[in-house]
Structures are given as C-alpha cells and as structure tokens.
C-alpha cells in the first residue's frame, strides 16, 4: 500500500507539471502568433510604447522569446513555476490578484459542488441500483429513458431554460405572494444573491447534479449487473442470506470499485458544467469568474483559474486512485 501511494503521488506531480507545461506552451504560442495580450489592458485606446513596455514587464511578457514563433520560452516558464509555488497565479486587468479573487469566489463554488455531489450521488446510486435490480422490467426502461433525456439536455440548455423560462415567472409569483425575503422566493431567484449564498445555489446545484447523473446511473447499473451474475454472489445466496444483505455487501460493495474509478471523469465534467452554471446563473464562484473573464477577454484570470482548476482535478484524480486501492484488496496487496 505504501509503495502504491508514493508511486501514485509522484505520478500525479509529474502529470501536474506536464499539464502546466502544456498550458504554458499554448499561451506562449498564442502570444507569439496573436500578439501581446498586454494590449487588452488598455482596452480601446492605443498605448504608447513606454506604457506597453511597463505593462509587459508587469505581466512577465517582456522576454524576447515571445516575439519568436516556436520558441518554447523556458525562462519565463521557470519564472512562472516559481510564482505558482509562492501562490502567485497572476492578476486580472485591474491588478487584483487571482489568488485573492479565487479565495473569495471558492466558497460559493464549494457550496455548489456540495449540492451537485449529493444530488448526483443520491440520484445515481438510487436509480442505478433500482435499474439493475429490476433489469429488463418497466422500471429499468423508464430509468433508461430518463437518463437519455437528461443526456439530451446539455447543462447549458438546462440553465438557460431554468433561468429564462422557469424562474422568472415562478419567482415573480412567489415574491408577490410570499414576499421577496421568503425562503421559497429566494430558492427560485433567477440569479445568485450574495446575502443568501446557500439558498440561491441549491436549485442550480440540483440541476447540475441531475445533468451529471445520467452517465453515473448507467455506470452503477452496469457495474451492479456484472455482480448480479457473478459466482461470488451465488455463493452468498447459497449461504441463505437475505437478498438485502447480498445486495449491500456483495453487489453494491463490489460494484463500488468500478464506480469510484469513474468519479474522476465525472468530476471534470462537473467542472465544465459548473463554469456554465455559475456563468448563466451569475454565481460568484470560480466558474463564474472564468465565465466573465472569457467575456471580457481577461487572459490573466483565465490562465490563473484554469491552472488552479487543473491542480484541483489532479488532486481529485489522485484521491480517487487512493480510494480505489482502499476498496480493492487485490491492488492494496499488490
């Protein structure tokens, strides 16, 4: 187990390094072919050469390598890595540090993710287990139909429909009948409200969780079906155990292994979904920050937030792998 953990952690660090390098190379190439993003700082008015040079220096873009297409710009990369280690992920166009923005935005993203994870897990486990149990029956077919329907509604569409078509009339009605400070009215508020950070992320979170649950339902169903037919389940039944016990200790427990491995991918999906959700619903979180940065073309923020989210993804994938080992003794005792 110890060796496995060390190996996985080292692998994770390497992956992270390579991912950051990839992001650096992409940025560098973009600057080389597309011109200097420092210009965006000045918006519409044309800066003087001196002003431009000052801004370039501040963003670390004054290295001549940025003028030579194809140059990997190793020196600025090393410099940037050093900045990352010190917790410096750049600044936005108004000179506010990304770390500062993220530290105020992250709690809302965490709230959203908590709601998402709970929804996603409960819906996925419940419907997936039921579908496996009643395989081939009407219930199974219904759940399958539901998961197809969820798949056919991209997060983006769900959020637009929710915001523009559902919440506005519902909120207006609830506000007029119950008052604008009532829980129900806040729950259906068309956009995020900083004074009610929990209540206004519940519905977007539930919807995002539902959107991610379709593939999870299928996965749970497939993993459990594999176990329903397994020899070891037959052995358990031969022991005279109640079906409930067999399902919990042999089917759900064993199917947890493949299910856990998929959590990492569902997480990356959910991150993308969170950007859209926070963007459309105006939630002040990491995704919302990124969304607005794309709209205002604030490359510094985009770069910083994407890097931070990449670090987060690597960490989650690492944790998933460790959990996987904890669940499967065949790996633990390799």
């Amino acid at each position, binding site marked *: 187990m110890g060796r496995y953990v060390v190996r996985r952690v080292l692998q994770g660090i390497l992956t992270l390094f390579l991912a950051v390098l990839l992001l650096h190379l992409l940025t560098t190439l973009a600057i080389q072919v597309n011109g200097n993003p420092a210009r965006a700082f000045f918006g519409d008015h044309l800066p003087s050469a001196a002003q431009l040079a000052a801004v370039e220096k501040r963003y670390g873009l004054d290295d001549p390598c940025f003028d030579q297409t194809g140059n990997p710009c190793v020196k600025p990369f090393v410099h940037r890595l050093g900045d990352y280690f010190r917790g410096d992920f750049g600044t936005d166009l108004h000179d506010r540090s990304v770390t500062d923005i993220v530290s105020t935005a992250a709690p809302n993203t965490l709230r959203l993710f908590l709601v998402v994870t709970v929804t996603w897990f409960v819906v996925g486990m419940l419907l997936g287990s039921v579908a496996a149990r009643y395989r081939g029956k009407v219930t199974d077919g219904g759940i399958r139909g539901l998961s197809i329907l969820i798949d056919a509604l991209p997060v983006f569409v769900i959020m637009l429909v929710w915001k523009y078509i559902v919440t506005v009339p519902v909120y207006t009605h609830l506000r007029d009948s119950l008052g604008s400070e009532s829980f129900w009215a806040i729950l259906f508020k068309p956009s995020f409200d900083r004074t009610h950070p929990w209540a206004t992320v519940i519905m977007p979170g539930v919807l995002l969780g539902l959107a991610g649950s379709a593939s999870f339902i299928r996965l749970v169903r497939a993993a459990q079906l594999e176990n329903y037919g397994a*020899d*070891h389940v037959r052995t358990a039944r031969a022991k*005279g*155990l109640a079906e409930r016990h067999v399902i919990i200790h042999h089917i759900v427990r064993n199917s947890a292994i493949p299910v856990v491995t998929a959590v990492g991918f569902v997480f990356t999906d959910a991150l993308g979904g969170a950007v859209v959700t926070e963007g459309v619903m105006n939630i002040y979180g990491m995704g919302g920050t990124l969304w607005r940065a794309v709209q205002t073309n604030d490359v510094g923020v985009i770069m910083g937030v994407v890097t931070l989210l990449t670090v987060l993804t690597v960490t989650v994938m690492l944790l998933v792998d460790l959990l996987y080992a904890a669940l499967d003794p065949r790996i633990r005792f390799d």
Partner: protein
Amino acid sequence: MSSTPTARPATEPLLQVEDLAVEFRTPAGVVRAVDGLSYSVSAGQTLAIVGESGSGKSVSSLAVMGLLPRPPARIVGGRALFQGRDLLSLPPKEHRAVCGDHVAMVFQDALAALNPVHTVGWQLTEALVARHRISRRDARKRAVELLDLVRVPHAKQRVKDYPHQFSGGMRQRVMIAIALAMDPEVLIADEPTTALDVTVQAQIMRLLAEIQAERQMGLVLITHDLGVVADVADDVVVMYAGRAVEQADVFSAYASPAHPYTKALLASIPRLDQRGGTLDVIPGRPPVQGRIPAGCPFHPRCGYAQDVCRTDPRPEPVEVAPGRFSRCHFAGDVLAGREPAELLEEGL
C-alpha cells in the same frame, strides 16, 4: 424396520429429488435442461451425478438450492424434499433460508466463487453473523476452527487474508469450509476439483470424503470424471441430455453397466493395468441443448442403436435389477455384457 443385509443404511433419505424438470427460455426457444430427474441421498451416503458438459447436472443442483436465475430458468415440474419438506414449493426467501442452514454447496471455481473484497474470515462466518447474530469474537474463533477443519495451515493468521492470497487448492478448502460453516446435513459439491492440479484434486477429494464420514452428511458429488466416483461414491446417477440414463449402486454400475453410455464412459477411462492399446473414445459430440436428437438422444453416438432408437419416443427407465434403472431399449443386453456385433448377428 428390520435390518436388511444390504450395505446401504436403511434410514430416511435426507434429500429426495423427484421427477425434477427445468426449462430455460432462450432467444432460440425453450430448452429443457433437466427432464424427469429423480434421486435420493441419505445421511452418510455419497451420491455421484456423472455426465458430460451440458448434461444438466449442475442445473439440477442449482434448482434444488434455489439458485437458478429466474427468468430465464423455470422449474416446470417435480419436487425436492429435504427431510420430507418440498423445497421447491417454498417461497424463494424461505427456500434459501432452509438451504442456508441445511443444504450447502461447494462451487467449482473457488476464485470466482469467493468475494475478492472481503477477507476469508469474514466470508466464513458471514451467515453466522448476519443470520444468527454471533459476536465478532466468536465469529473469529469459529472462522479459525473452520479453516483448521479443512486443514489450512496457520489458520489463525490466514483468516485475515483475502481470497487472491491463497493458492488454488487452499481456496477450494476455504470454499468447503464456508459450506461447512452452518453444519449442513447435505453437501452438494459441484465439480469441486475440476479447476485444480491432479495431485491437489486427490487431496481435496480425500478431505471431502473424510469430513463426510466424520459428520455423516449426505454428499451429492457432481462430476464428469467417472474415475473420481469409484473411490468415494455409494450410488451413481449417469446423466445425458438432461435425463438420468442409468441409476445404480457404484459397484454394479462399474462391474456391469446397463446403459451403452455408461459402458462407453467406463471404456474411455485410462487404466494403468492395460498398456499399449488405444483408448476407447465416445464418437461424436454431446448434443447441444435445443438440438437434442429425436428418439433416444444418445443414438447418434451409440453402437447399439437400431431403428427403434431413432423412431421411438425417448425410452422410459427400465428396472434391470432391484434398485437399478436404465433408459435403453437394449438395457438387458447391455447389462448381460453383449456387444453390438452379437446383437446384429442375431438379426435384431
């Protein structure tokens, strides 16, 4: 009951299967996997069910245990009496509970039949803990006892191990220990040695025979290996295409088989006392379920086959001797040891 001079213990049968019939619904149509199977086993007795792959021997025991997946399987007839109680008419939940306490099963592939994510100790006492609520400390003690019973060395340490940490033979011992955990009256062993090395096979068979004798269990041994049967079985049921083609005590079956299939099976066992000659094989292949030949299902592979075997409906069991049955039109002739050529000469 007066004592009779026969070797068989004159007790009530523990498990009595009567006229069992199982069907499978497959995309290709309904397939009858077991058709009119009857047998009984008493305390201390070993019954061997012998047959090739697909003869219905495993399906019949899974049906008795209530472990067949339904659908596609369906039990369409017959009874399975355990101590006089028909298991097949019980609700599934009760059926399994009775089997859990009294009728245990040892499966073929121990690696697949054991749960990879739980320790061996946990699996050994799972039923005791879940159904009889014994304490964890008692469970641990009981698990060590059980591993000792099946002679797994260092039982105390090994209860904490996972199935993949055991060798094939040791895993099969664990499988047997799990079956013994509830002190069953009847043990059904489904090809318990097929997946193992020859030397390990002998050890496992010896262990099973010893434990059975010690505890006076009824043992149903399912195998395709007639060689194994001779050493341990009292009675033998030979199955072909879902039916019992011959039922006899093991000595008579070996000495004078009453069905051409049994005879052919015996002839195909390699023997150490006959050097040089070629080994007899049974020509052709076992029938695929769903495409069983009309008439006697064995006729395409049978040296005795005549027109009657092809045209007549399947032969019914003939009692060739007291307690001996054979489903063959020529049972008497086969029993008498006459060869197909002799019958032909007589112009039959």
